[in-house]
């Protein structure tokens, strides 16, 4: 037991959790904790907007699978964090967000920079704490980290009133915490795994659908072993991109609104799907009713509330998907079953795959999305980490950039938060300084958090921004062209700013690439650079993302390029 103030108790508790970096921005209500941060061994990475702090913590968390930590002050600091917190919640990313709050006796009096962040954040956090006494701090930090990183991960908010940061008290740091209502892990469900195997083996046209949960539980090897043992083709959700090597013979790539043509085509033909760690987002499945027609679904997920939420399942296996897949593998090995790789279903799948890989019509011109993203794949080392912004470029990345090494592709898939990719790339680079990190960006989205260039340059966290620039809010423009008879409104960004000059003004490197050759060279320069590199790649603003499954329609109604 030691006497210390709340700020110091917070830093000690964070250090005990192994925190080495926090992303944040100080203000009136979190000054006492910043004063203790100054005295601690934790590195502070200063952002220029709190939203970016949350995205950096999110990127850090997804890559390291440990909660990323972000700090903000009360009121606007806290509300600015909220978009980033909601993004982490939608994509099940581990995060601990720490906000300052007005002193306890001022709460509820509409004090300066007071906002009810506990109330505001409620549907968008996994849990939130507001310690009212210094003594509570070690326990809420311990609980916060435990909740954020176990089971289905998510963001936890610690909202600490200023006087609780300042006051001194005797504190103890618990080794264990008790939460009677929280049971993140369940035993492996042997009975249903057996049933799943029977169903899978009795089906004629099976497929594996790997979702983001496969990446979160790092079940890469298990997924690949099962697919190879049974010779079952693998599709992924968009969030599951990177769970299975996309250059693998059994890979068909992502399904969904902008899924691969071959993946969507095959998905409409299958009779049984082994769905791993997915919540069956509308963006992945199109319409729920049509998706499950004539389809038997085996659903493996750590979150029991996902079973039956969007799709009806025949067999549900609740639990950590890595543990479940391991058991499944063992049981399959005992059965010593091996489907021959000459089976008719796989032959048909390969025919469809080969057809679409050869015959999908691409946008003309040297600098089409497909060509520039394939060029990036060619020059980028396979272990590099890629994040994306949100928009057309993101869907092109899904279509034309193959994720090969496990867990190297991250995107804001659930909330679809523009501005996510660049700060998330910075967070990813902090987690993995040994590999290159590239943000595949669009101009509209990069625009939203481009001031993180200051953080990247001044904190010496170099990443590459691969900016596919169509001088517009391209996805909105595409929908206006497709669904609103070309009544274009609110989409023209008018070539402003000049991204090369913008990068240079922050002390970063700006390169404009107008040919594939220049592009390849620019990426190589970026890979060897000590500072952030923004590669501005102008493209045709009229290029659409195709194939396209229009909202509210089913995968079989996919629109193909004409």
């Amino acid at each position: 037991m030691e006497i210390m103030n709340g700020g110091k108790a917070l830093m000690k508790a964070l250090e005990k959790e192994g925190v080495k970096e926090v992303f944040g921005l100080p203000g009136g209500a979190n000054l006492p904790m910043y004063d203790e941060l100054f005295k601690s061994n934790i590195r502070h990475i200063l952002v220029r907007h709190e939203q970016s702090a949350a995205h950096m913590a999110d990127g850090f968390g997804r890559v390291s699978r440990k909660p990323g930590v972000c700090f903000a002050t009360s009121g606007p600091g806290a509300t600015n964090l909220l978009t980033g917190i909601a993004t982490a919640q939608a994509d099940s990313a581990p995060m601990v967000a720490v906000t300052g709050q007005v002193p306890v006796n001022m709460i509820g009096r509409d004090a300066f920079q007071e906002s009810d962040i506990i109330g505001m954040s409620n549907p968008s956090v996994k849990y939130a704490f507001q310690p009212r006494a210094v003594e509570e701090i070690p326990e809420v930090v311990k609980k916060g980290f435990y909740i954020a990183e176990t089971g289905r991960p998510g963001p936890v908010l610690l909202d600490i009133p200023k006087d609780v940061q300042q006051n001194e008290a005797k504190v103890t740091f618990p080794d264990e915490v008790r939460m009677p209502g929280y049971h993140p892990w369940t035993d492996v469900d042997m009975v249903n795994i057996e049933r799943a195997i029977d169903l899978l083996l009795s089906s004629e046209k099976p497929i594996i659908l790997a979702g983001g949960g496969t990446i979160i539980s790092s079940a890469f090897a298990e997924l690949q072993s099962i697919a190879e043992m049974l010779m079952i083709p693998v599709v992924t959700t968009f969030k599951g991109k990177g769970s299975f090597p996309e250059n693998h013979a059994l890979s068909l790539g992502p399904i969904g609104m902008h899924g691969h043509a071959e993946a969507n085509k095959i998905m409409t033909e299958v009779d049984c799907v082994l769905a791993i760690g997915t919540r069956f987002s509308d963006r992945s499945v199109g319409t729920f009713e049509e998706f499950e027609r004539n389809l038997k679904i085996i659903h493996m997920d750590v979150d029991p509330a996902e079973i039956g939420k969007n799709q009806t399942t025949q067999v549900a296996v609740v639990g950590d998907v890595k543990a479940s897949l391991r058991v499944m593998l063992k049981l399959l090995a005992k059965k010593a079953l091996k489907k021959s790789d000459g089976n008719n279903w796989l032959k048909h799948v390969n025919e469809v795959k080969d057809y679409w890989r050869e015959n999908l019509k691409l946008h003309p011109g040297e600098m089409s999305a497909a060509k520039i993203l394939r060029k990036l794949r060619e020059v980028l080392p396979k272990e590099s980490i890629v994040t994306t912004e949100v928009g057309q470029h993101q869907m092109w990345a899904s279509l034309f950039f193959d994720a090969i090494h496990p867990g190297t592709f991250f995107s804001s898939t659930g909330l679809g938060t523009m501005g996510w990719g660049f700060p998330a790339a910075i967070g990813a680079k902090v987690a993995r300084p040994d590999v290159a990190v590239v943000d595949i960006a669009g101009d509209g989205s990069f625009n939203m958090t481009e001031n993180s260039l200051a953080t990247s340059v001044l904190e010496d966290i170099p990443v590459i921004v691969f900016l596919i620039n169509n001088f517009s809010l391209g996805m909105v423009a595409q929908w206006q062209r497709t669904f609103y008879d070309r009544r274009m409104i609110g989409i023209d960004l008018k070539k402003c700013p000049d991204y090369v000059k913008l990068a240079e003004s922050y002390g970063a490197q700006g390169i404009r690439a107008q040919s594939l050759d220049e592009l390849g060279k620019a990426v190589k320069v970026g890979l060897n650079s000590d500072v952030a590199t923004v590669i501005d790649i102008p493209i045709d603003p009229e290029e659409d993302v195709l194939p396209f499954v229009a909202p509210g329609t089913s995968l079989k109604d996919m629109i193909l390029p004409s």
Partner: protein
Amino acid sequence: MWAILSIRVENKPGILFKVTNLFRARNFNIDSISVGVMENPEFSKMTITTVGTEKQIAQIVKQLDKMIDTIEVKRLDEKKSVYKELALFRIKSNVESDSTEISKLANTYGAKIHNGQEGSLIAELTSTPDKIKAFEESIKPFGILDSARTGVTAL
């Protein structure tokens, strides 16, 4: 479909808000809600009645179960549990004959009559929601001036 959910939660501030906010955010209905501290003051019991399809109710139970503040979520079987609600009705009663008639009805339903303000009576009935509804219909012709219900509680 009508369902009775019995939820044991930690007795801490803010949990009622979180439970009701979950219903709102997930597009579920709350038909009635009642909350009280349990014999162990660490816990409170919430009883929520809700209306939805079988699938929706199963999903509500799972989402409530997922909440960290809920210790136990049970869907009660109507046939195997006792579920009651307390209702109070202020009924217009200006003439002697009305008051006699209301007392008779109250007797039939097992309601207690309290003296209300001038020209009115208060009927107190503890029963199931459908019996309360039936009683309400029977006294409607006299004129219901005000009413209050606790929501169902159940074991």
